[in-house]
């Protein structure tokens, strides 16, 4: 009997002990677990805080930044994988928990923020980094301290406010930038610019408000893909809520930077026009901004010849110009035009300015521009064009400019003395002044037909352009051809016709109607 009792007593004891042990184990392991959870949570938020600190420290050397970012990223990955992951607090989906390491994107954005005076961006082959270093005369002080001069790790080159981006990283960087931008824009559209709770505790909206994120990421993506319209729109959306002029002038700086690498980007030019419209609506139209825009186009035109988008932009500016500025522009841009006689867009710009002068002749209310002044300007342009045509043989752009100058001279200055603008399509009646003018033009045609050296294409082109020029004027004034025949004689006229027949036979049929 006692054996059983003993055994039961013993089991009860054992169970108690086991219970105690179990309880104590559970208690200590849950304390341990709690401790692990706490440590994981602290480390996790420290990592995020450090990311922020790194991002906002504008004075940090890019190479140090890159190393620290990578260290942090490695730590974060170790935290997120394996055993520690069970102790991490669960986070809502957001940019930080994306699986991609956007290290290069962050580095890019950091470089941009640490050098706000960057005025030129380009994509360069990694093999060119060393060459750029040599040209700049130095390499970064930190380079040898932190990492060997290893070409494969160099992604950005930044000196003297110029930024080079390695072509090796372009594809991934562009994809990441678009991805991150679109997420940020979605967030902004959904929640407006409300600060997250953690930021409210900091009393200020530190880097990370939806608005700032959108501006930061859109800047990055546009430097890589300047025609991504949605990114420009995001910036317009945010800017339209701003009331400081500085926000808009800063936007002019950014788009200018983008144009340094993508001078033909239509979206960028369009964005500039939007900014100027906003500035003129909200503040005023400072003439100096218009002047600077005009100069910008000229400097871009130097590197990007006959860039339609750029020159269109310059023409667009003319609608913001008073007549005095128009005349100034005509004078200022003359020198450049004379050095770029093949740039037809540049001469079209002059035509645009001159059209504005013509328009201003008929403005009502006593504000009309003085016709004799306009006449002087017109004659000057005609004489200058003649000099250029004789000096730069066979240049189509110059002859096309002459078509415009001559026809308008005839219509506006040689026969129209009234205060009323001539009707389009009104037929031109010959008078003495026109006859003298035409006489001179025929003389010019004659000298252009003298093909000095048939081997040179330019002289043949000169003969062609001159002949076609005269034929074109004939369309507006049929009796002109009779004057040409009279003055040049049959042989020379045959010569003109055969020159045209070689390259532009279809134009000759116009003579049938004469």
């Amino acid at each position, binding site marked *: 009997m006692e054996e059983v009792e003993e055994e039961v007593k013993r089991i009860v004891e054992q169970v108690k002990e086991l219970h105690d042990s179990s309880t104590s184990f559970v208690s200590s392991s849950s304390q341990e677990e709690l401790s692990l959870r706490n440590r994981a949570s602290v480390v996790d938020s420290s990592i995020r805080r450090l990311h922020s600190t790194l991002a906002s420290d504008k004075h940090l050397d890019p190479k140090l930044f890159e190393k620290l970012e990578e260290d942090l990223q490695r730590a974060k990955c170790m935290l997120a994988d394996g055993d520690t992951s069970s102790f991490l607090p669960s986070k809502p989906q957001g940019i930080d928990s994306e699986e991609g390491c956007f290290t290069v994107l962050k580095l890019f954005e950091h470089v941009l923020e640490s050098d706000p005076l960057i005025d030129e961006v380009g994509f360069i082959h990694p093999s060119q980094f060393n060459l750029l270093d040599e040209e700049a005369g130095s390499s970064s002080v930190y380079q040898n301290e932190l990492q060997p001069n290893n070409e494969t790790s160099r992604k950005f080159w930044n000196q003297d406010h110029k930024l080079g981006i390695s*072509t090796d990283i*372009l*594809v991934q960087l*562009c*994809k990441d930038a*678009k991805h991150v931008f*679109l997420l940020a824009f*979605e967030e902004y559209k959904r929640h407006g610019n409300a600060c997250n709770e953690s930021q409210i505790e900091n009393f200020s909206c530190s880097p990370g408000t939806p608005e700032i994120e959108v501006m930061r990421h859109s800047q990055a993506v546009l430097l*890589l*893909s300047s*025609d*991504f*319209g*949605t990114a420009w*729109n995001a910036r*317009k959306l945010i800017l339209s809520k701003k009331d400081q002029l500085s926000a808009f002038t800063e936007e002019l700086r950014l788009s200018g930077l983008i144009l340094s690498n993508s001078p033909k980007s239509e979206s960028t030019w*369009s964005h500039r*026009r*939007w900014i100027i*419209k906003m500035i003129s609506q909200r503040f005023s139209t400072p003439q100096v901004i218009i002047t600077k825009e005009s100069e910008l186009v000229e400097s871009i035109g130097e590197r990007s010849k*006959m860039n*339609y988008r750029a*020159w*269109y932009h310059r*023409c*667009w500016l*003319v609608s913001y110009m008073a007549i005095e500025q128009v005349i100034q522009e005509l004078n200022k841009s003359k020198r450049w035009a004379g050095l770029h006689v*093949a*740039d*037809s*867009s540049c001469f*079209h710009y002059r035509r*645009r300015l001159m*059209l504005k002068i013509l328009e201003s002749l008929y403005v009502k209310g006593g504000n009309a521009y003085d016709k004799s002044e306009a006449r002087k300007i017109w004659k000057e342009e005609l004489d200058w064009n003649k000099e250029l045509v004789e000096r730069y043989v066979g240049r*189509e*752009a110059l002859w*096309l400019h002459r*078509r*415009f100058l001559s*026809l*308008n001279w005839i219509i506006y200055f040689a026969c129209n003395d009234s205060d009323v603008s001539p009707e389009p399509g009104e037929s031109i009646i010959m008078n003495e002044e026109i006859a003298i003018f035409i006489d001179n033009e025929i003389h010019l045609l004659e000298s252009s037909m003298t093909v000095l050296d048939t081997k040179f294409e330019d002289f043949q082109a000169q003969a062609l352009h001159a002949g*076609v020029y005269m034929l*074109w004027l004939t*369309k507006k004034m049929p009796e002109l051809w009779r004057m040409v025949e009279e003055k040049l004689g049959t042989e020379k006229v045959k010569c003109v016709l055969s020159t045209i027949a*070689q*390259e*532009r036979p*279809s*134009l000759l049929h*116009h003579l049938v109607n004469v």
Partner: protein
Amino acid sequence: MADKLVADKHLRYILNLMAEKKKESFESVVMDHLRMNGAYWGLTTLALLDKLGSVSEDEVVSWVMTCQHESGGFAGNTGHDPHVLYTLSAVQILALFDKLNILDVEKVSNYIAGLQNEDGSFSGDIWGEVDTRFSYIAICCLSILKCLDKINVKKAVDYIVSCKNLDGGFGCSPGAESHAGQIFCCVGALAITGNLHRVDKDLLGWWLCERQDYESGGLNGRPEKLPDVCYSWWVLSSLIMIDRVHWIEKAKLVKFILDSQDMDNGGISDRPSYTVDIFHTYFGVAGLSLLEYPGVKTIDPAYALPVHVINRILFTK
């Protein structure tokens, strides 16, 4: 030197491009904001080569619809902002597949009509940029959807005419430089609305035929520029619309386009010996269509869609 159109090679080139999911080249990443345009270029070329059946209609159409914005307009790609440029391409793609009936026509047409300005011009989107290209897009698109009456056609036409220059050409806005692309848009818009009498055809024909380069036979887009295959479309279609196509040397132009093909890998480039792309492939084939090249279906010069597609639209309902 090429003497024929290597249609099979071009077909393979296009199908490979459309199947490319990974998008590893910088060009394709940078261009993905205008994927809708790219799809239109590729698919219309296939249609002109009578190979539209080589693609999955369902896949294409459902992707197109994911690009529609709540405003009714279409974006260049899913999740991007809408713009008339992509809206026209979307409508044209649906027209190719005879799937216009899936559209909420009211919604799309309201988006476009809402972009007309006081002076008759059109903005490209809510941000206000004005350009005669957008006038063409609005008119072409609404015409396909059969609701041109939603806009003020008279004012639209008057605005386009105000963009006519002394040389007979048209620019993007009044006083802008004449450009073959802009000319196509203005003439196309005037053609669709029955207003070609507002064009000085001889004067414009003159400007257009001066685009042909005597040596290569290719066409440029404006004076002093190099010839480029894409102008085979814009200059040629304009000439056809104003009845002056006999003013250029057609045989020489055909040769220029054929010489710009990549005979091995397919695709057409902007001029002989340069890199090909989908844009120039489309314009090259479309140009050959206008030149009545055998084996290429006829394209409508104003709507830039195969004639059988336009007929289908105009003669139903």
